[in-house]
């Protein structure tokens, strides 16, 4: 492994997260205090609830942005769903349940669907900032219909790739899964084949620039990087490409695509521009 890393350093450095190369399946380390992360999780919930969101798509980064390739801004996304949540005292309170696709600890090339909670989400955040897309009411209802149905699991492909091609069904990551759920809600189908055809036609993925050396060595260093589904460059779904897609087809309003900063955040704010500019500016 050390030899591979040295080789990568010699060829000019790989524009992929260094920790990914070093240890891809380690447990996350909390970047902030538990109290801070709990407050941030509640701050996000309050923002969503104040906007009347029953369903939101929320993104966070588990890596420092200087470690992320190209213009990618977030490393994980999930659906946040407003629901009555049972409390230990036997009561109920309203809050958000979070619907994730996580890759497994071992093997890391497989994923599962896991429902957890806002604090579990913010505990994986390292910059104190999340990206949010709130779909319009019709889309929220449709997405909720999919999440509440067996289609939700049928849309999951457990073969995981960190940079999966959203127009190819071989692999899937968390953001591609979200795109598949949104697509299922739009076209009212659970057929992954049909969804991939439609994504190829209508969705503009984010391009990740890797030179041939990086493309060859990266999968050796991190098994989650599988490029069998990529042709003519690396294409993947991201916060900004999903935001562009939602805007382009009137599935969300521009003022419902935004970022939320924790009080302790040092992250720079990006004003979402919409359209092509956002693909480079906001992700």
């Amino acid at each position, binding site marked *: 492994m050390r030899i591979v890393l040295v080789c990568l350093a010699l060829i000019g450095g790989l524009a992929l997260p260094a920790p990914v190369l070093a240890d891809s399946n380690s447990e*996350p380390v909390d970047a902030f205090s538990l109290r801070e992360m*709990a407050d941030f999780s509640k701050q996000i919930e309050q923002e969503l609830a*104040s906007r009347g969101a029953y369903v939101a798509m929320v993104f966070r980064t588990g890596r420092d942005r200087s470690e992320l390739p190209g213009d990618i801004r977030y490393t994980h996304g999930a659906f946040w769903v407003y629901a009555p949540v049972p409390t230990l005292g036997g009561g109920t309170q309203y809050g958000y349940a979070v619907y994730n696709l996580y890759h497994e600890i071992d093997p890391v090339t497989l994923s599962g669907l*896991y429902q*957890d909670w806002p604090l579990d989400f913010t505990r994986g955040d390292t910059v104190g900032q999340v990206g949010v897309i709130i779909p319009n009411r019709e889309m929220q*209802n449709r997405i909720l219909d999919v999440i509440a149905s067996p289609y939700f699991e049928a849309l999951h492909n457990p073969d995981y790739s960190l940079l999966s091609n959203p127009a190819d069904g071989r692999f899937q*990551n968390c953001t591609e899964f979200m795109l598949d759920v949104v697509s299922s809600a739009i076209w009212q189908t659970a057929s992954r084949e049909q969804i991939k055809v439609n994504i190829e036609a209508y969705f503009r993925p984010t391009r990740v620039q890797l030179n041939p050396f990086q493309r060859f060595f990266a999968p050796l260093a991190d098994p989650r990087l599988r490029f069998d589904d990529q042709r003519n460059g690396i294409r993947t779904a991201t916060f900004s490409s999903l935001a562009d897609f939602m805007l382009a087809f009137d599935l969300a309003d521009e003022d419902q695509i935004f970022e939320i900063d924790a009080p302790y955040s040092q992250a720079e704010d990006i004003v979402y521009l919409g359209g092509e500019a956002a693909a480079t500016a906001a992700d």
Partner: protein
Amino acid sequence: MRLLLVSACTFAVYGGAALAQDQQQPANAMEEELSERGVNYARDDSTQDRARNYARDAQRIARRRQDQGEEEDAPLPLGEAVIVDNNRRSGPDN
């Protein structure tokens, strides 16, 4: 189907109780740190049944409020307690 659902619920309750006992120690530590905020723990395991039940509850609430003529961006009521699942599965990037 009804029997299956009842069985699933019963299993979830027992599973939740067992999980709560298993996680007593870390839960206490976390509760201490979050004492000013207030904290609640998920009662049962992370299963698709539980996830789907929350989603169906969400559907019912959304439809009921919309049927009552709720405006699209009307604020939603929110509890103060923080819910956590000690069974963390999240890595840095997923």
